[in-house]
């Protein structure tokens, strides 16, 4: 007997001791132990579904109630199991990212203690609850973060996350309409012979540029047999010439002189856009090789009862590069305003039901649900949810969204 055990152990030990592989080392790195105990969020839920804070017989059940009303704090206080309905000094202080503090005092509301004020989104803050009950002070503290993440500066840099300071901006919203270029009636002059007669001389050819008063042709009147000049009534280009020397000029127009230095774009504004378009709005006129600024000069109903309205826009054509009949696009500026606070559109991301930007405070990023106003292709006005001067993520904001959502951010109240 005495032999067996030692012998056994010696054998087992020699076999195993030579093994280079020792027990797999403990892999748990205790990563979860960073938080201090007192800062841990209370996990127990109370009978009303709120967080249950307990200390020495005193309990506070704290809930953010947001069904049908803006989010508000509701609390139920009990001492040794009996509900306390008066003589309580209950205080909740929220410290948000960036140091903003919200404080709530509570008043009894028949059924529960109601905090004064709205708990604004995001519900991400460090909570400190103090309770004075029967001359005794109780205190709880914990972190309640949502929509928040931390990214080291160098990694953010490497990942191409760039921030900008929120500030005022000018917003110019446009809508695009298409239409063809036309010439205005006042810019085409059709020249006829005042007295019928024989053309004795023609001075211009098709395409010639003429100034007002330039002689176009000479006609020998049938009645007086005098020769008189046909002169151009406007500056322009000869676009039609119907006669040659020797022909008889009668009633028909002989020349058409068009002034193409200004053309008119007739942009088609459809019913859905009509309410936004008005006279005097700025228009960016675009066609191949042309990009100029113009104004909506007139709005007129379209011919033949087509469902659209024509916005007539005067287009300068000093070089003659444009020609009537060309289709052009016009970006009509329907809204142009200076706003006190605007964010870059690239910064906007959807998050749950909100449109948010991510603000940066040191290495921490957090959602800011925004109430948005006017918007154009680059900037969007912010009505609420962000302060001027806040640094928000512009480039690669999707990365922050991805990072927050990947950890299964919860919205727990």
């Amino acid at each position, binding site marked *: 007997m005495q032999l067996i055990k030692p012998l*056994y152990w010696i054998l087992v030990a020699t076999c195993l001791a030579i093994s280079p*592989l020792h027990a797999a080392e403990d892999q748990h*790195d205790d990563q979860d132990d960073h938080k201090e105990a007192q800062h841990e969020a209370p996990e127990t839920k109370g009978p009303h579904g709120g967080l249950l804070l307990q200390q020495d017989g005193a309990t506070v059940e704290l809930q953010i109630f947001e069904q049908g009303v803006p989010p508000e704090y509701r609390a139920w206080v009990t001492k040794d199991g009996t509900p306390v309905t008066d003589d309580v000094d209950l205080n909740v202080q929220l410290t948000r990212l960036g140091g903003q503090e919200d404080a709530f005092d509570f008043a009894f509301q028949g059924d529960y203690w109601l905090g004064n004020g709205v708990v604004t989104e995001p519900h991400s803050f460090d909570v400190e609850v103090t309770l004075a009950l029967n001359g005794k002070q109780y205190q709880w503290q914990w972190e309640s973060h949502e929509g928040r993440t931390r990214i080291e500066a160098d*990694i953010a840099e490497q990942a191409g996350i760039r921030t900008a300071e929120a500030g005022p901006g000018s917003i110019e919203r446009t809508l695009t*309409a298409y239409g063809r270029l036309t010439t205005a009636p006042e810019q085409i002059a059709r020249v006829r012979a005042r007295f019928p007669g024989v053309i004795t001389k023609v001075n211009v050819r098709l395409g010639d540029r003429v100034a007002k008063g330039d002689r176009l042709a000479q006609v020998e009147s049938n009645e007086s047999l005098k020769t008189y000049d046909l002169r151009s009534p406007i500056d322009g280009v000869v676009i039609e010439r119907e006669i040659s020397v020797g022909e008889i000029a009668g009633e028909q127009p002989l020349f058409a002189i068009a002034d193409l230095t200004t053309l008119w774009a007739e942009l*088609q504004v459809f019913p859905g856009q009509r309410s936004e378009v008005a006279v005097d709005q700025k228009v960016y006129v675009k066609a191949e090789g042309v990009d100029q600024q113009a104004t909506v000069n007139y709005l007129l109903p379209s011919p033949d009862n087509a469902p659209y309205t024509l916005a007539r826009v005067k287009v300068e054509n000093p070089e003659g590069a444009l020609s009537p009949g060309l289709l052009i*696009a016009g970006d009509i500026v329907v809204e142009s305003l200076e706003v006190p606070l605007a964010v870059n559109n690239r910064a906007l991301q959807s998050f749950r039901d909100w449109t948010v930007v991510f603000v940066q405070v040191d290495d921490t990023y957090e959602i800011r649900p925004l109430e948005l106003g006017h918007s154009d292709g680059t900037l969007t006005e912010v009505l609420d949810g962000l302060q001027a001067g806040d640094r928000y993520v512009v480039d690669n904001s999707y990365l922050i969204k991805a990072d927050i*959502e*990947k950890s299964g951010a919860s919205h727990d109240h």
Partner: protein
Amino acid sequence: MINAILRFSVERRFLTLSLILVLIGVGLWSFQRLPIDAVPDITNVQVQINTEAPGYSPLEAEQRITFPVETALYGLPDLSYTRSISRYGLSQVTVVFEEGTDLYFARNLINERLGSIKNALPPGLEPEMGPIATGLGEILMYTVEALPGVTQADGSPLDATALREIQDWIIKPQLAQVPGVIEINTIGGYDKQYHVTPSPQQLLQFGITMDELVEALRANNVNRGAGYIERNGQQLLVRSPGQLASIVEIEQVVIANRHGAPVKVSDVAEVGIGKELRTGAATRDGKETVMGTAMMLVGENSRTVAQAVAEKLETIQPSLPDGVKVEAVYDRTTLVDKAIATVEKNLLEGALLVIVVLFLLLGNLRAALITAAVIPLSMLATITGMVQTGVSANLMSLGALDFGLIVDGAVIIVENCIRRLSHAQHNGKLPLRERLQLVFEATNEVIRPSLFGVAIITVVYLPIFALTGVEGKMFHPMAATVVMALLAAMVLSLTVVPAAVAVFMGGKISEKESPVISGAKSLYKPALLVAMKLRWLVLGAATALLLVCIWLATTLGSEFIPQLDEGDIALHALRIPGTGLEQSIEMQSQLEQRLTAFPEVDKVFAKIGTPEVATDPMPPSVADNFVILKSRDQWPNPDKTKDDLVAEMEEAVTQLPGNKYEFTQPIEMRFNELISGVRADLGIKVFGDDMDQLLASALEVQEVLETVEGAADIQVEQVTGLPMLSVHPKRMVLSRYGLNVEDLQALVATGIGGENAGLIYEGDRRFELVVRLPEAVRRDIDSLAFLPIPLPDGSYVPLSEVAELELAPAPNQISRENGKRRVVVTANVRDRDLGGFVEEAQARIAQEVDLPDGYWLDYGGTFEQLQSASARLALVVPITLAIIIGLLIMAFGSIKDALIIFTGVPLALTGGVLSLWLRDMPLSISAGVGFIALSGVAVLNGLVMVAFIRDLWREQGDLVTAVVEGALVRLRPVLMTALVASLGFVPMALNTGTGAEVQRPLATVVIGGIISSTLLTLFVLPILYSMLHRNDRKHKAVEEATT
């Protein structure tokens, strides 16, 4: 019969020996054909049906493709179940058949069914079956890369499109010819396309619609053959070539005639090489790349095929343009070679150790060699058997082979022969006849116990055959191989061994009692006598040891299946649904840079999204990363464990924003993708029609589950979250403009998605000609509202006028199972028994969740397998034990003796448990197999010992003397079998090479167990025997007459 065989073997000893040559020949031939792989294939019998549907959203893919395909499969013979996913541009139906169904048969059936539904599918869509490959199929991956500074002929840098062209038209056609390769699957780069991108304004200018443009391109891009003409006896073929061949030619195509002037494509559109709307991308070391995966035909030898592909790659290299490099980044050969090297090393070292031990203990080189010869011979026989039964050689199947166990039978026979021969030779050299007779007798004396022993070891492997599913596929080959090896050894010890003894042990047999044995004997005798005096103490201690070990066993952790270390790391990088491919690539680049910074890492590459052949349909938000490690000697710290490295990597990459990770290994990852069942303990599937209702019900289920005690990691399958821009037609307004819904949809589809307008041929290469809006217009969704829609009268109307644009989340994929939509809620169980948890969950859900009509629940998950496995094992294990006892009773005709021998089993297990505990290893199936082997060895030892003691007792009549004498005589064989069996496993227990983790627990258990079992056989067994037989004054003759 045994007598007859034995006599034949001894009499016709030369004939018997010459049979060895046949065995060797057949064995070597089989060896050539033995499929070698690293791990057993655990894929089920499945066929994937992929239908590519460019532009289809998940909802449309499900409605138009998945549903008809699934419906067509109803009622297939041997169908186990179907599951499907519908995603952007893809419908994949996976058809799983019952185990054992012939894959080709299954594919034929499906092919036939698919043929019948061709008309039910939208035109142009073609369901295709996935490659005939299993989870082991991805044997080699390579990347195609341009060296820095390399340019194309026109001076532009060699981009992803050009590389993809090289892959598709130079590399792939050559690789696809390699025997055993079923598919070359490409991911990454862009399929080259010719893009015609009309400007909406220009179209409006000339009053041309997209349709007219597409039509014009189609109508001007055909070659026509026109028969032949016979002229002057000669035949002339007539042909009118009209195909477009270049960008310039495309630009010159006339679309229409306006006021006598032709409007050419170049007037309204840009033409250029464009990028396809791809569904997948590949990256390597932080940069985009083009990657090919060679997939192996099912049943091929992965090592051979991978080697062939790698060699082919080498020969392809010179045919590539200068500056383009193709490089294998993952090669299965490496792993297989490593695994095989591990097995080889273990087996060789084990065999050497066995031979040395035999020589030392037998003290006779010839005898040792004869015994050792059983090792290669039975190995060859086993290989033949493996080839015949289709078992591949891998870490699992070869992992449990212990030459010590295999030669046990032969050891006992040879030992006895030597002992008898040397005794007989004290009177001088024996004449031949007498010697043969002696050999026959000596063999016959011990053949029964050793045959029984082998039979018992074989029987104890039976429970392994009762495992099903993945566990079954892992361990069946192992059990099959061991049983084959044992049977082969058994046959050999019946035939070849006695024949060889008869032939080769003719000379003077000097049985030199080796100093080891005589030393052991001089220690053993007094020890045994003392032990017999203190028998109660010994028995008490043994019982106490047993109890301690039972308690110890419960404290050991457990793992179901051991993890084979593949040497490389794979990790899924998961991003939130809806993440775009380009965004993913950017995030991937940061991740890869971080990973390559590890000095242990050789290369990192990844597949993002879905490859060309959707063998693994992932959304663009998911990337499969492969981290190939350098060989250990290049590590800064070669002793760092892989677990440590993985932990370090995890820490490093977790800091990167936006990614979630799952670490795994390449083959493991592939298996998981293919098997893809619910991997949590409990999966509750909600079936029904409406996605919103399904999700609502699933959330209800989740809520109830959360309140069930023991529930952990509760998750609802993520089904929504893909942002979708919907263009809702305004029917009234459309009709006012004389448009219908289809016109609008066609315009949006062509404009955004693009429309195929034919093919451009460049030699063999063919590229799509696509019409779609310019990138700038497509991407600007703010301006999409102003997209002009041409009207029949040549005017236009903006999109916002006739349609409502809505941006809202939509299903990112629709999963179906057995032909019905489903959403899964999964949960794991902590600190509670699984059965109770599932019961409570079922009851609570039935009570508290109110499902609408037409919706139902199904419960699944690993709990099912665990339950069925334990149910089966609960039946099979007792039966096995009963069979063992039955065999023992048959052998001895005495229940008492049978039970005495049987006590060896629990006592042997104590050593196994202790050694596991000492090495801090968990209980696993591997360890379980070790315990099984151990029971066999324990019984074998006991059998031999008891048989001898009983014979002696019968001869001498004195129980105590018989016990002591018998025990002493059997000391040598017992020590020998124990030593060879345990030493044979020592290399396996100590090995750290690839695959060793599977074998280590097994070897550890056997070594520890054999040590305890030997001690117990040597001490407890004689004590028990003498105690239990104390009252049997006289031995009954009847008892011995049996067997």
